[in-house]
């Protein structure tokens, strides 16, 4: 059973060494997609033992995840994990996240910041942005999940091959959820802990996600 972790990274020299080193203990291979960083992200990721793919121009987290997932499929991964480069997730939670895949309980696992574990979510995110995102997911995609925008997920390779991430930006989270439900994939949520070092997605960023999703529908 080959487990590959895909980490999209943009200007993460500060965290990437620590993140890759921590993740490596729990997976067979770490693929870092350097989304045209202007700092030493790529070199540091390589030093930490990751396979590094470089985007020649910055295209966003969705595009980097798409490249990384393709590379993981090419590397014959059985399980593909998506993980953030900014050190907000706990690598030691990887075994808990992939357990439902190993036991056959699920084909896709989504980490949730809103189940039993405590994350230090900023107040505005907890009471405005996430409820709004949940509402958008329900409205656009008829999806009911506790965490609408989690970047920590694990997919069986057959599922990852079916998911076509079209959005280059942050709208990929909603897009992945939609495709999981559209393809009738067995999905489960697992509690995860998130440590916020910065605010992350702002309200404006949330609105951009909605706009991206609309444009995506129109250009299809």
């Amino acid at each position: 059973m080959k487990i590959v972790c895909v980490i999209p990274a943009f200007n993460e020299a500060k965290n990437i060494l620590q993140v890759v080193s921590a993740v490596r203990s729990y997976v067979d291979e770490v693929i870092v997609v350097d989304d045209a960083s202007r700092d030493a992200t790529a070199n540091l990721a390589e030093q930490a033992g990751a396979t590094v793919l470089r985007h020649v121009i910055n295209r966003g987290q969705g595009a980097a995840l798409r490249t990384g997932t393709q590379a993981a499929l090419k590397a014959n991964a059985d399980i593909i994990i998506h993980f953030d480069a900014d050190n907000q997730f706990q690598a030691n939670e990887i075994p808990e996240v992939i357990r439902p895949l190993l036991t056959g309980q699920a084909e896709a696992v989504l980490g949730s910041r809103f189940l039993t574990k405590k994350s230090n979510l900023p107040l505005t995110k907890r009471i405005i942005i996430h409820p709004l995102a949940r509402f958008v997911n329900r409205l656009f995609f008829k999806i009911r999940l506790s965490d609408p925008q989690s970047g920590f997920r694990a997919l069986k390779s057959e599922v990852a091959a079916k998911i076509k991430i079209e959005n280059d930006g942050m709208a990929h989270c909603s897009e992945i959820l939609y495709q999981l439900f559209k393809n009738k994939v067995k999905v489960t949520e697992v509690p995860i802990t998130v440590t916020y070092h910065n605010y992350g997605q702002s309200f404006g960023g949330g609105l951009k996600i909605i706009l991206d999703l609309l444009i995506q529908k129109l250009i299809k």
Partner: protein
Amino acid sequence: MIQQILALIVIIFFLIRLFSQKKKKEINSNEFLLWLVFWLLAAAAVIFIKQIDQLVRLLGFSGTAINILVYLVVLALIYQVFRLRLAIAKMEKNISELNQQIALKK
């Protein structure tokens, strides 16, 4: 009358520019045709402004022909911006695809 002459001078200026761009092959035939029709219609609207005024009244609109023309131009521009947005989104998608192919080849 002076306003009409001024408007026609502006339109002729844009038409000359359009033909010069076509000559230098800076725009393709479809784009050339689209703008040619646009400026010729604009010139026709300026020349036949009185007839359009009568038509506008006949159709029951309270505004003058020039007002209606401005509204139509604004609508056309909004539509053009919308089309451009979609075209850019498609181009960005292609750039991402290319970016991915390069990253995966190395």
